């Protein structure tokens, strides 16, 4: 493998990983606070992608590629983020909140139900065929020496990086972020300190879902939008979250990027057939669970009696 080829795969891996990271953040934040896997997260991503697609097509109208299409794309993305955040909060309110004191199994089962309702509802409402996202700008490849980069990849990298930085600042510096960290450490004590835990949980779902919507739109640029697109994406993003140490925000970012790179190199270098590309994430999950179940950056949690 030449150096150029190496950078090519690295670039492809980074873009894919950036998307995984965005989605993984939603899993990890919810897990950090509620200690449960939100199975519907992948389907929120799908809904976000659909909203983005429809909005963008509507905003763009017949205008040729240019500044307006780019603006329209970002507008569509921001509005879709808002909608998805509302959907995420709504789901939490209706399907998870009543189960907060129930057995461990109850919210998981409820989440699977929500996931099924969303994906099949979308198939019913939007049809089972897949749709193509219209390009917001000219996507002809840029050659940097032997490395080929598409403008989409640049967009994906920039957007996911910006989103992650904003999130990091939000969680580390703002009052709400502090409340979130406190809640994830100890809900009871956080409540005693005057933190409205319900609001924090709502906010967590809103942020996670908004990031998922961004992830969904970014994938849709290069792949297609269809009702079950969230299942595999969600699964991989979850693996990314586990790799980074579930509950750990920076870990999820790192895990996503690592998984993206592993997948690209697995196919390109180790000759894993493309049809079995999806098995790589699964293999990574089993490996990490066997070797380092708390993830690369996770803390070993002692269970208290």
């Amino acid at each position, binding site marked *: 493998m030449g150096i150029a080829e190496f950078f090519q795969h690295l670039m492809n891996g980074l873009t894919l990983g950036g998307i995984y990271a965005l989605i993984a953040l939603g899993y990890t934040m919810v897990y950090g606070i509620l200690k449960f*896997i939100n199975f519907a997260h992948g389907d929120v991503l799908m809904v976000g992608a659909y909203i983005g697609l429809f909005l963008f097509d509507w905003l763009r109208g017949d205008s040729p590629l240019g500044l307006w299409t780019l603006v329209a794309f970002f507008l569509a993305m921001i509005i879709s983020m808002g909608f998805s955040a509302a959907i995420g909060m709504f789901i939490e309110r209706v399907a998870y909140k009543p189960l907060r004191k129930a057995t461990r199994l109850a919210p*998981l089962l*409820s989440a699977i139900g929500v996931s*099924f309702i969303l994906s099949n509802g979308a198939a019913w409402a939007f049809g089972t065929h897949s749709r193509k996202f219209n390009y917001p700008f000219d996507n002809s490849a840029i050659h940097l020496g032997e490395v080929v980069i598409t403008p989409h990849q640049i967009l994906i990298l920039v957007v996911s990086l910006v989103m992650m930085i904003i999130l990091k600042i939000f969680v580390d510096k703002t009052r709400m972020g502090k409340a979130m960290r406190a809640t994830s450490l100890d809900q009871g004590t956080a409540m005693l300190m005057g933190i409205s835990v319900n609001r924090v949980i709502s906010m967590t779902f809103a942020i996670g879902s908004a990031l998922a919507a961004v992830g969904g739109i970014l994938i849709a640029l290069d792949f297609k939008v269809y009702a079950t697109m969230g*299942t595999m994406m969600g699964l991989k993003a*979850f693996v990314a979250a586990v790799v980074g140490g579930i509950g750990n925000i920076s870990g999820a970012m790192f895990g996503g990027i690592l998984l993206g790179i592993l997948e690209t190199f697995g196919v390109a270098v180790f000759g894993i057939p493309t*049809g079995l590309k999806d098995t790589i994430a*699964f293999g990574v*999950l089993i490996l990490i*669970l066997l070797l380092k179940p708390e993830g690369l950056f996770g803390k070993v949690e002692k269970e208290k009696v």
Partner: protein
Amino acid sequence: MFNFFLLILIYSGIYALMALGQNIITGYGGLLSLTQAGFFAIGSYATAILTTRFGWSFWATLPAALILSAFFGLLIGLPTLRLKGDYLAIATLGFGEIVRNVLNNWDSVTRGPMGIQRIPMPDLFGFTINPYKKYAFLVMVFIFVGIAYFIFQRLARSRMGRALSAVREDEIAAQSMGINITTYKVFAFILGASVAGLAGSLQAVFSLSVTPGTYTFMVSVMVLCMVVLGGMGNFKASILGAFIIQLISYFPQLTGLSSVIPPQFKQILFGLILVVMMIWRPQGLLGREETRYGKKVAKSRKGGAQ
């Protein structure tokens, strides 16, 4: 029409087997497994490949299907069950997708998306169990359901069942009572997997062909729905749940409304069942079954000291 009803009954039986398996994992062990479809597929393909390619009889493929699914159950169960139960859900969800992926892509063995056709009908002492004449097949399926029910019922009341319930209620307490929690969890998971493999075997000789499209995630969710609707920790309820879910699933065809009702109707309904049951009736329609032992203890406590 009546014939159609028989078909629903046969499918109820096949799914009831899977639901029994899911119940021992989820209802007794308190573990969420999302891959009955994966083991179902493994069982089906084991029977399909062994009968068509190697000329085995259906009866010889049954134990093979069982053992193969059990083996895969062990393979996923061991790494994930050592940890908190949540990981099992994701690992099994992934496993189900991987199985379908492999079936779709491993052309030389599974013939990819085309699937395997012309699976021979099973026969017993010269009598062919023809799936088109549904009675004999129905009887066969329900004999299997009966056997599985009996075995599971006995197991649930044995040391294993009690140990599993203990693990479900409180892992740490169970552990400190000397119960090896991983062993019991893995054992429950393997049992559930193998009975799903058996169901797969039956499915293969019922439809006489297998294609990867049959074994989607929806199958796993349907099975989960059966258990949740009937009642977790109650084997009778799983069989009832299987019947109700199959009725719902064939409701459009049964009433001749399939042109009016969208095909996603039943899936959306399954999702709703899960959410609604969890919020309003988490114990299911029939509720958890008290073992005779548990009742006796309760009675002797009420009777007071002698």
